[in-house]
């Protein structure tokens, strides 16, 4: 079989830290080859070596059988290697075509020939069933569409081998299915794909072979058809992984969070949360299931004081907290793991140690009379880092930006849980994380519940909601359409509720059909 890319015995070192050690990855022509590993295992480093962003200390790279030296991304481009980055590199207020030609603009007598370019984009889009409008502006199209623009960018530049870096991290389930189809279509057209991911489900569904790396070491390559998720997870983490988080039955006590007929508007003034009622008790985890955009973000922002409440009441331990400032709400006993850790959860240009004190920097013992004791900040940070297994290059002094997503999230969870809040709000706490980290985070949430705290979990992943919650409240169009218990419901029922059909309604429909 012909290999289009061979990376043999790659070693990459940063100072004393070995990010890649003797890793071998061989991509066959026309296959989808998954690269599996935990956050921080060295997947990105390996791909950056292939893309010419890093130079390896040892090992060889062959493209179509010929040994090559990839000194910068242009060399990689010319060899036909393209990359679809996890964080899109698009200019928001440019059109699709403008973004695609950026850097290699076709010119006619010194001015950009946008018409021809758009035609070419249109043709490519049709060839691969991408359905992208060449003249749409990036800011007006969905995340899934933006990703297709990134794919088009590589195709436009003539890529035969395309690297997808965690492509499903920010997509909705619907968009993920579509992406899988696109990838299969690319293969039909003779492309080869490296898929970087830690989602086992996707690997099983779409890939032909899997190369696993763990802590910078190449573990091996297996054929997807001959393996299963459990084996892959073990290879990746290096130990047995429990998919179903073990937990004892919940023991709900007094009401901690009480929301009565809450109405909240978004930035455009449109009501996103409508007359919503919700109760969370001490010692239970209430999961909010729902499709993205049904008012989840506005609900959390209203509870935490980041957004104005239009109508209704929010009570914490019987005390009204509606309309209070975020800090007042935090101090009255709310911990919040925000939905977007980069935007809200962390100051990325601060060291991770400073971030761990983001909610407590102004209080004793960390500061006194307005002066911060950075020794205490760092001491506290080291404690959290150890307890929550936050891995980074330079300990508490590493910039938050430099940590992997899972480690950033662990630091945030450490920060919020250590404040010992009565109510812990966890919004998409495992988004983009690998199985090891997910397991860790789920256990921490359950631990809080067992300590008698109230936990409100918001998630788009049905598995997660079913797995972790004691009660599932399904949100649809800004209100709770129904509350069910995970033991007495099925994913199908939840799916119907999330689509806005009450169970009685669907039973009626079913009855008529029979």
């Amino acid at each position, binding site marked *: 079989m012909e290999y289009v890319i061979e990376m043999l015995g790659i070693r990459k070192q940063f100072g004393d830290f070995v990010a890649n050690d003797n890793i071998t990855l061989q991509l066959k022509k026309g296959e989808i080859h998954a690269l599996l590993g935990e956050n921080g295992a060295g997947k990105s480093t390996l791909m950056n070596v292939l893309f010419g962003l890093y130079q390896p200390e040892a090992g060889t790279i062959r493209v179509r059988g010929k040994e090559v030296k990839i000194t910068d991304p242009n060399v990689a481009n010319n060899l036909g290697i393209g990359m679809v980055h996890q964080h899109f590199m698009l200019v928001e207020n440019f059109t699709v075509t403008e973004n695609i030609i950026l850097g290699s603009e076709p010119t006619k007598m010194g001015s950009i020939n946008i018409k021809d370019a758009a035609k070419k984009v249109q043709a490519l889009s049709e060839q691969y069933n991408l359905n992208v409008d060449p003249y749409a502006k990036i800011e007006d199209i969905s995340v899934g569409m933006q990703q297709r623009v990134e794919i088009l960018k590589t195709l436009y530049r003539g890529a035969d081998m395309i690297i997808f870096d965690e492509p499903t991290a920010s997509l909705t389930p619907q968009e993920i299915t579509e992406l899988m189809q696109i990838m299969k279509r690319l293969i039909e057209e003779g492309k080869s794909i490296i898929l970087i991911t830690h989602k086992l489900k996707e690997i099983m569904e779409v890939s032909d072979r899997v190369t696993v790396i763990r802590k910078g070491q190449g573990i091996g390559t297996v054929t997807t058809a001959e393996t299963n998720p459990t084996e892959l997870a073990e290879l990746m983490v290096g130990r047995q992984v429990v998919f179903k988080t073990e937990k004892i039955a919940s023991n709900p006590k007094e009401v901690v969070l009480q929301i009565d007929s809450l109405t909240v508007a978004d930035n455009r003034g449109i009501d996103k949360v409508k007359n919503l009622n919700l109760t969370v008790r001490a010692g239970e985890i209430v999961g909010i299931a729902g499709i993205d955009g049904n008012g989840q973000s506005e609900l959390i922002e209203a509870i*935490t004081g*980041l957004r104005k409440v239009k109508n209704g009441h929010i009570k914490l331990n019987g005390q009204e907290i509606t309309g209070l*400032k*975020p*800090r*007042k709400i*935090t*101090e009255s006993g709310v911990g*919040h793991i*925000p939905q977007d850790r980069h*935007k*809200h*959860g*962390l*100051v*990325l*240009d*601060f060291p991770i140690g*400073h971030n761990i004190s*983001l*909610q407590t*920097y*102004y209080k004793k013992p960390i*500061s006194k009379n*307005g*002066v*911060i004791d*950075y020794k205490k900040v760092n001491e506290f940070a080291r404690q959290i880092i150890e307890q929550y297994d936050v891995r980074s290059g330079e300990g508490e002094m590493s910039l938050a930006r430099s940590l992997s997503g899972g480690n950033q999230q662990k630091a945030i969870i450490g920060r919020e849980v250590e404040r010992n809040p009565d109510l812990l709000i966890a919004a998409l706490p495992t988004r983009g994380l690998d199985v090891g980290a997910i397991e860790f985070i789920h256990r921490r949430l359950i631990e809080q519940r067992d300590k008698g705290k109230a936990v409100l979990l918001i998630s788009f992943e049905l598995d997660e909601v079913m797995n972790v919650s004691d009660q599932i409240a399904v949100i649809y169009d800004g209100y709770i359409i129904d509350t069910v218990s995970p033991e007495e419901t099925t994913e199908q029922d939840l799916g119907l509720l999330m689509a806005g059909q009450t169970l009685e309604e669907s039973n009626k429909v079913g009855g008529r059909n029979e």
Partner: protein
Amino acid sequence: MSKRVVNILVPLISILLGLIIGAIVMAVSGFNPINGYVALWNGIFMDTYTMGETIRQITPYVFSGLAVAFAFRTGLFNIGVEGQLIMGWLAAAWVGQAFELPAVVHVPLALIAAAAAGALWAFIPGLLKAKLQVHEVIVTIMMNYTALHVANALIGVISGGQERTDSIHESASLRSPFLESITDYSRMHWGFVIALIAVMIMWFILQKTTLGYELKAVGFNKNASEYAGMNVNKNIILAMLISGAFAGLGGAMEALGTFENMSKLHAATGIGFDGIAVALLGANQPFGVLLGAILFGALKYGGLNMPSEAGVPTEIVSIVIALIIFFVASGYIIRVALERFGKKRKEEK
């Protein structure tokens, strides 16, 4: 090449390159570069008088640089340092001449008045930014013009229609017989000590206080700051107030030290605008600003000697000084070049 060596080499090579290109400019224009640079050197270091004057020149640059840098750290671009400095100058000059007080009270009072005037002038754009999201760049630029003309008008009122205010009372002056005696009667004054204290204050606020932590957090990420319960608007206004206070103190240096009065200004002093360059030279770090101000002030003052001693016209002098500053500011290029060079040598070994 170790990081340390690179850190020392970069500014040295930058200055050297600037000097070389400056020399070429002088030579092409028909002037002897060596004479030119000797004149520049003499203009800075020739005797205790020029050294005293150089330090006097540097002092307000420290303040304007700190003012710009401080706002920068909170993500604000304060181009209004010029206007804030003018208002501070006027306030200090007025307090200095209008009251008769013991020096221990008079000097601090004049300084506080200057800081307050600068802060007030910066408060307006800060408030507009915080409450109405009006961009601070536009407001601060416009406030420079209003400061200039308001100050000129007030000078007329204070002095009873004269072109300049009365001289300040001796009790408000920063000059001293001691400094005059060791610098051959230069106008050097105690302001440089206040400037050093200001550097320390900025360092302390940013590195040690909760306020500094908040200001930096807001500068880096407003959303996360809000999430963490910080009052973003309050921090924006505070950052502008402190920045303006530094600028106002810069004006006080002119009022209580250099001129001991204030004359009507035909145009901006330029100190505030140069503060932007000083802040950038110093990478918005307090001690960096100090070094940037020293370089800027020394070149500016030393350059004044070039036309008289070497016959180099002022226009060429400006070009040469700008070149040196340019190369220092583009130290990044030299850093990259050095790293490439270091890598090559390593590979050859």
